[in-house]
């Protein structure tokens, strides 16, 4: 049930520390269709979480969205319309977070936590409780009839994350925002949660934006991926194609620096240096100082994200030379 028109469209988003402050997210545009998962991958400070949070207007108090438009399509038959982030909270968009302990109110029982969303929308106590029960069952909480009476601290990290997903689903969202929801979990539990997220996307036709620092997690859940570096999207494309044939040196560096579980064990290729500090960006391409493919032109112009084929875009001047391996 992939929609032909995106559920959400963000254009030219800019997030800065105050009106004239340092720019932290710079000219980011993205869209997600129904039933599609968009992955955003990047290292800490790349602006990936800020981009995600801005959808619901959940930026830290010192940061503001200085530019950018957002259009949202509430129903299948509706036209996308401009929206204010605040109006989407609890109405069409939900979010799950990295730390399930601090995201669950410790003074409420599990059942009440999940029922709170429907209750706020005027559903009767009875019906909301029933809804909570079936949601907990849907997200795979064992013995939901008993667990509705439990407190958050009595659950394991994996179960808490499932409860948070149930809460997110309770308002029947069209779009689910995932902010590193498995980073704090063990590998086997992460695996379970990723499988659950996958299933919900397929069954409910949810649009997903999944943010992670780990490209291999993104590879598992996202059909399409955007790579962020120093506040910009520097490459975008179908996940498989992007991993097999990266068209930006940063994406390539990211892939080569990851250890592999198959093939002969090889030495990792680290990207030299570290990402620039916001507000102290180098001139020209922001990856130029660390780039093994850098040429003089890279230091003069800041290359825009340009389409390089069906569904693919890269912000590298030399992307064509990177095609199918290039020379390293």
């Amino acid at each position, binding site marked *: 049930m992939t929609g032909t028109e995106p559920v959400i469209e963000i254009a030219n988003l800019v997030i800065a520390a105050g009106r004239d402050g340092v720019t932290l997210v710079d000219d980011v545009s993205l869209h997600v269709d129904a039933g599609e998962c968009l992955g955003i991958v990047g*290292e*800490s400070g790349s602006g990936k979480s800020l981009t995600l949070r801005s959808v619901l207007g959940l930026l830290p108090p010192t940061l503001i969205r200085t530019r950018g438009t957002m259009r949202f399509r509430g129903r299948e038959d509706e036209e996308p319309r401009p929206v204010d982030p605040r109006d989407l909270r609890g109405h069409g968009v939900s979010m799950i977070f990295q730390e399930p302990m601090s995201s669950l109110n410790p003074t409420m029982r599990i059942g009440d936590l999940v029922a709170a969303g429907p209750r706020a929308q005027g559903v009767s106590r009875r019906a909301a409780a029933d809804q909570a029960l079936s949601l907990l069952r849907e997200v795979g909480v064992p013995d939901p009839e008993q667990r509705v009476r439990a407190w958050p601290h009595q659950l*394991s*990290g*994996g*179960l808490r994350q499932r409860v948070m997903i149930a809460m997110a689903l309770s308002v029947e969202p069209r779009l689910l925002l995932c902010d590193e929801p498995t980073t704090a979990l*063990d*590998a*086997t*539990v*992460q*695996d*379970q949660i*990723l*499988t659950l997220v996958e299933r919900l996307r397929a069954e409910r036709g949810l649009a997903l934006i999944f943010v992670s*620092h*780990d*490209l*291999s*997690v993104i*590879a*598992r859940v996202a059909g399409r991926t955007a790579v962020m570096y120093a506040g910009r999207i520097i490459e975008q494309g179908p*996940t498989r194609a992007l*991993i*097999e044939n990266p068209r930006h040196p940063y994406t390539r*560096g*990211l*892939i080569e*620096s*990851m*250890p*592999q*579980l*198959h093939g002969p*064990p*090889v*030495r*990792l*290729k*680290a*990207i030299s240096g*570290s990402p620039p500090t916001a507000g102290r960006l180098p001139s020209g391409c922001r990856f130029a100082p660390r780039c093994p493919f850098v040429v003089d032109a890279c230091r003069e112009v800041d290359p825009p994200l340009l389409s390089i084929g069906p569904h693919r875009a890269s912000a590298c001047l030399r992307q064509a030379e990177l095609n199918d391996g290039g020379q390293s």
Partner: protein
Amino acid sequence: MSALIELDDIEVHFKVRARRSAAPVTLRAVDGVSLAVERSQCLGVVGESGCGKSTLAGVLIGLTEPTAGRVRYDGRDVDTRRSKDVRRSIQMVFQDPVASLNPRRRVRSVLAELIDYHGLVPEAGMTSALNSLMEMVNLPPRVLEARPRELSGGQRQRVAIARALAVQPEVLVADEAVSALDVSAQATVVNLLADLRAELGLTIVFISHDLGIVRTLCDRVAVMYAGRVVEEGAAETIFTAARHPYTRALLRAAPDLYRPDAGRDAPALGGDPAGPST
């Protein structure tokens, strides 16, 4: 030949009470672990949270007293009251690059204190000793004058490695030493550890939940679950022909860049990893 480090049936049990009035329960954090590490070998210890791998690290560096079992270093029995020299020989790199450096001290002062206390270099050689430590961990010498908060995560972790190396150890115990770092910083530190092992002949015990990194770095692997080692062997054997169902489940659960669907048809491991048994 005998191994450099031998753990013989190590047990670490804690008595805990759920409430003040409750009867104490014995928590078996480490429950009968025997391992041997040869000189210049890199042993990977993998497992999920609560499996006892960090407690084991505490036993190795002599900060946690095992309730039973013996630790032998270079053929001699050692415990938490080990000699200055044995203590110096086994050093640790901690997980959290923020918590592992004293926020009030400059890098120079932390390193110099250790070198000075152990009398490892003459007074006049201190500057060059510090500079060569920085060079060893690929940091510019001016990092010596920095305080921890001025450094990035990767830089801090390299300072932490320099601190461990400052006392010229034989063994480095790395407890999730790269898991708090970004991917590119992670690769830098992993490569650094590999180089140090090659150049200095360091023996490394690399504790991690990340199978990919363990595979890159280690030549032997021990898999821990609920305080016990459930499988141990040469790294390639573990990664290609694991015997224990838990090892297989771990390998299946690890997300893989090039095979995102690998093992998806096989049943995923249900439930949560078991904590320390009681």
